[in-house]
C-alpha cells in the first residue's frame, strides 16, 4: 500500500484511540460479564443461544455506532478545524487522504471487534464451561459484522464528504436501518406492480444488503454458514464499500475547502 495512505491510516487509528473510543470495550466487557452471569441464572438450556445472540448483536451495534459517529467526522472535522490544509499542501493526493481515513477507521473497528469478540467467547465459556465445534461459526458471524462495518464506514465517509456531520449521521444511520430490512424491501418489491415495483426494486438494490450479512440468529442456533454465502458476502461488501469510497473520492476531489 502507498506509504502516505498508511501514515494517514495510522494517524486516524491513533486519533480514535486517544479520543478514548476504545473505552467502549470496558463498557462492553462489563455488559458481557453481567449478561453471562444473568443468563446463567435465568435461562435453562438456552444459555448458549442467548449469549451468542446478545453478544454478537452488541458487537454489531457498538461497532455501527462507532463507525457512524467517527466516520461522519473524518472529513468534515478536518475541514472545520483546518487540519486538512497542512496535509493537502504536502505531496498528498485527495484520494489518498480519503482512502487513508477509511483504512484508519476500518483498522480501529477491527481491533475493537477483536477485543469485543474475546468478551463474547469469555461469556460463552462462562455459561457453557467449554467450547463447541459449532462456536467456530461465531467467527464467521463476526467476520460478516466486520464487512458491515466496512460498508458503513465507506458510507459515512461518502456523506461526510459533502454534508454536515449531523446530516451525515442521519443519512448513514437511516441507510443502516433500511439495509437491515433490505430483504423485506425486496419482498415488498416482489408484491407490487408498475412504477412502485421499479422504485422499490431500485431502492432494494441501492441500499446496502445488511440482511445477508446478518447470520447472528442462525449461528446462535448452531447452524453452519454456507461457504458460498461467505464468498458472495465478501465480494458484495468489498464492491459496495469500494463504490461508496469512489463516490466519496469523486466528490472530495471537486470540493473547494473554504
Amino acid at each position, binding site marked *: 500500500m502507498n506509504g*502516505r495512505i498508511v501514515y*494517514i491510516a495510522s*494517524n486516524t487509528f*491513533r486519533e480514535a484511540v486517544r479520543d478514548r473510543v476504545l473505552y467502549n470495550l470496558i463498557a462492553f466487557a462489563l455488559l458481557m460479564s453481567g449478561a453471562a452471569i444473568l443468563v446463567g441464572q435465568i435461562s435453562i438450556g438456552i444459555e448458549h443461544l442467548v449469549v451468542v445472540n446478545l453478544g454478537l448483536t452488541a458487537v454489531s451495534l457498538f461497532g455501527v455506532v462507532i463507525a457512524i459517529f467517527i466516520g461522519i467526522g473524518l472529513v468534515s472535522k478536518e475541514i472545520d478545524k483546518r487540519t486538512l*490544509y497542512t496535509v493537502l*499542501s504536502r505531496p498528498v493526493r485527495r484520494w489518498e487522504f480519503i482512502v487513508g481515513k477509511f483504512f484508519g477507521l476500518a483498522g480501529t473497528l477491527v481491533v475493537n471487534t477483536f477485543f469485543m469478540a474475546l468478551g463474547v467467547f469469555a461469556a460463552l465459556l462462562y455459561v457453557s464451561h467449554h467450547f463447541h465445534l459449532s462456536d467456530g461459526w461465531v467467527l464467521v458471524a463476526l467476520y460478516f459484522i466486520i464487512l458491515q462495518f466496512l460498508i458503513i464506514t465507506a458510507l459515512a465517509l461518502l456523506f461526510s464528504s459533502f454534508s454536515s456531520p449531523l446530516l451525515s449521521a442521519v443519512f448513514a444511520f437511516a441507510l443502516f436501518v433500511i439495509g437491515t430490512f433490505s430483504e423485506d424491501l425486496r419482498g415488498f418489491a416482489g408484491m407490487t406492480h408498475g412504477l412502485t415495483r421499479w422504485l422499490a426494486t431500485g431502492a432494494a438494490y441501492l441500499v446496502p444488503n445488511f440482511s445477508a450479512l446478518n447470520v447472528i440468529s442462525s449461528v446462535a442456533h448452531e447452524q453452519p454458514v454456507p461457504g458460498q454465502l461467505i464468498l458472495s458476502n465478501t465480494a458484495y461488501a468489498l464492491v459496495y464499500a469500494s463504490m461508496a469510497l469512489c463516490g466519496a473520492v469523486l466528490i472530495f476531489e471537486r470540493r*473547494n475547502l473554504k
Partner: protein
Amino acid sequence: MTAIDILGLEKTYSVGFWRKKPKTALHPLHLRVEEGEIFGFLGPNGAGKTTTLKMLMGLVYPTAGSARILDMEINDPRMKAQIGFLPEQPYFYDYLTAVELLDYYGQLSGVAPKERSRKVREVLERVGLADVIRVQLRKFSKGMLQRVGIAQAILHDPRIVFFDEPMSGLDPMGRREVRDLMEQLKHEGKTVFFSTHILSDAEALCDRVAIIHLGELRSVGAVVDLTSSIEGNVELVWHGNKIPAAMNALGADCHVTGDTVRAVLLEGNQEAALEALRREQLRIISLIPVRTSLEEYFVRKLQPSKAVAGVTR
C-alpha cells in the same frame, strides 16, 4: 528563476441559497515572485489574500487562470514536496504532541525516517519549543500553536515557504523571532511569500510587496520604489517666529517652537514656499524630505479611485 508565477488566477463564488449570485473573491491576478525573495502580500481583511494562498496550495480551485510554482503545476506532488505552508490561525491534531505531529508531517512530506527525528528536534529548537516536545497540542497557547505551524512549514527544508498571517497571535518577542526566522530563511536561499496586514513587518522584511484590495491587485514593487512613487511631503524649518501669509495658501502645516518655525507641506509646493521665505528675508535652517511610509502608501492605495486622483500610481 521564477518561484511563483500567477497567471490570471480568478475566483468567483456563488452566494445565496435560492437565487445564487456570483461574488468575485479574486479578480484575475497576475503576479511573479522570483526565487530568494521575501515577498509580502498585503491587504486588509477580506482582500483576497487567503483565497489566493488557498488556490496556490490546491485547497480551492480557481474559476479561471492558472499558476505555476517552481515551474510546476500547483497540484503536482513533486512541487508540493518543495513548499511549506502555514495557514492563518492554524489548528492541529490536538491529541498529538509537537514531536508526533511533526513526525507525521515529515512522513507525509517524504522525509527519510533516519533524518526525521533529527529534523523534528532541530526545527522545534529553532521555533523555541524544545522544552515542550512531549506536551499534547491541546495544552498549547495560541502563540505556541503558531510556532508549531511555522515548524511544520519549514520541517522538510522547502524551497518556498508560504505563510498566511505568520505574526497573528504572537507577542512582540514572538513577532521579532518570526521576523528573524524569515530573514534566516532568505539567507538560506529560500523564497518566503507571506500575507499580512501588519505593514511594519512587511516594511522591515520584504524585498517586494503586492497590495491587494477587494480582490484586485493595486500595486506591486519594492517598498522604496512604491513609497517614492507618490508625491511626498517636505519639512521646512526657518529662523524666527513669523509665518508668511503665502504659507497658508500653500497648505503648509506650521508650528512655532521658540525662535524657529517648522512647516510640513507638499513637495510640489516647496519652491513657492522657499520663494515666500526669501521675500520675507527669513533665514532657512533646513529643508528635508519626509519619507512616505508604507502605511501611508497603503492607505492611499486603498482609498476609492476618486480620492487618489493626482496620486502617481
